């Protein structure tokens, strides 16, 4: 296992093992875990804990989740790191795990988390000129006018011709 001073919390959720590491040390922790045999990053994503009352307090609003897998020993480990701030920032893991490339772009696109050291951090799913990060909890569902809908038509019609 990695150095204990890197782990702030550990536990098991529904059978899945997890650890929490400080956001500043996430790259160091992931590198150590890769050396331990966790060679595959299954996915990387973010959870927005805005107004989440399942715990009295959260270390940060954005939780980065790294699911690692050791394909030889068939074990998995979930690494969490909490970040805050506007924009939230964390170190990129692309140099350790190549599949993190698109996952980090997706997380940037949908949550606005900046990954320091990512080779090309651009939007991936949303259009390049999109404003906002849709998977944040304060971004409403249906906040965007649906094209060709009645409402959209109203938006496109000048008041004197309505």
């Amino acid at each position, binding site marked *: 296992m990695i150095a204990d001073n890197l782990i702030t919390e550990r536990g098991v959720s529904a*059978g*899945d093992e997890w650890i929490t590491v400080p956001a500043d040390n996430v790259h160091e922790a992931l590198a150590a875990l890769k050396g331990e045999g966790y060679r595959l990053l*299954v*996915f990387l994503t973010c959870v927005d804990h805005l107004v989440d009352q399942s715990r009295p307090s959260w270390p940060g609003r954005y939780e980065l989740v790294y699911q690692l897998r050791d394909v030889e020993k068939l074990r998995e480990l979930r690494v969490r790191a909490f970040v805050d701030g506007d924009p939230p920032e964390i170190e990129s893991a692309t140099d350790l795990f*190549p599949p993190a490339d698109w996952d980090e772009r997706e997380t940037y696109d*949908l949550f606005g988390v900046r990954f320091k050291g990512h080779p090309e951090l651009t939007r991936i*799913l949303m259009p390049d000129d999109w404003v906002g990060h849709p*998977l944040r909890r304060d971004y409403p569902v249906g906040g965007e006018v649906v094209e060709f809908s009645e409402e959209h038509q109203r938006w496109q019609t000048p008041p004197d011709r309505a």
Partner: protein
Amino acid sequence: MSSTESMAGTEGVTISRTGQQGAFGGELLTVNFGPHHPSTHGVLRLIVDLDGEQIKRLKPVIGYLHTGIEKQMEALRWQQGVVVTDRHDYLSPPINNLAYALAVERLMGVEAPPRAQALRVIMSELTRLSSHLVWLGTSGLELGAMSMLMYCFRERETILDMNEEISGFRMHTSYIRPGGVMADATPRFLDMLASFVKEMPGHVDEYEDLLTMNPIWRARTIGIGRLSPEDAKVLGASGPMIRGSGIAWDLRKTMPYSGYESYDFEVATSDACDCYGRYLVRIKEMREAVKILDQALQRLPDGPVNVDDRKMLPPPREELETSMEAVIHHFKLFTEGYSVPAGDVYVAVESGRGENGCYIVSDGTHKPRRVKFRSASFVNLQALERMALNHMIADMIAIIGTADTVLGDVDR
């Protein structure tokens, strides 16, 4: 002004901005491939730098089919989310349902009864077959084997008929749900399945007669789109992509779920590491899927198909007329829904394309806090550049084809 500069602003085809010289005496040419192209299986755009006809750089541009499925899941109650999971990988809806259902069940701490698990295996394997059939038909079509589409869609039609019989829906079945399955299999479904299991191996022989030794098919796939085992591991490829590179990684064997450990089947692999190898893997997988179907049908256990938990699944219709408690449960389930204990869980299942995972986070309320679909296509597509480098642009059709990405799954 030179002719290269005047062409630089033209949409579609531009001389590469880097001005880099190719080996054939000209500059690299940047070509916009897609997003609307019949061979991209959806709307995938590729920006390709060509030296003559050789691919020197390739950059996939995705997002054209982004429908915000993960956002929608957050606005729906736990049992409503099933309907949305159908729609990201639209060629394997029951397998998507299964990943979500298993994840919710793990958080709730319940397990589906044996009959439901067997029915889940049956639906998963039927889906794998239908997904491989669509792949085989369309890939054949793209590489000049026009009749493949007709043959493959003939059998797929039978599978869709079976979907309709068991769930009432042909494609987006929503059949597998947290707690069990939608309804028990009808006797007619089991009859259809029995005759399908008998006929299908003969049909797979037919496809092999048409393709396996076909000189055109072999010329277009052998040695094309090489993905070494090391690259496949490093790039996180899964499904036929990694098995076609000789690594026997199949979640049904390595991390079994829904009782797959009790079925006797082989993991299909091929050491060819090219498009032809991936083709052989899928053909073998179709044969193995029929084997699993046969076993599941032989020992389909009797019993209920849903967990007996009134807090999670609605009571049977007839109980509503005699029991006040049933009415209360019914009302609560259809207005508020059930709550899932706070926590998070990741469940991965093997779809026709590879590791189809579902990561859910619950904050203890009746709606998910976060649902993330780890789709195989999204990760496999990142290996595209590695496979296509230094091949002819026409070979890219074969490479995209055998990568078998579903763009709905990539963009979610």
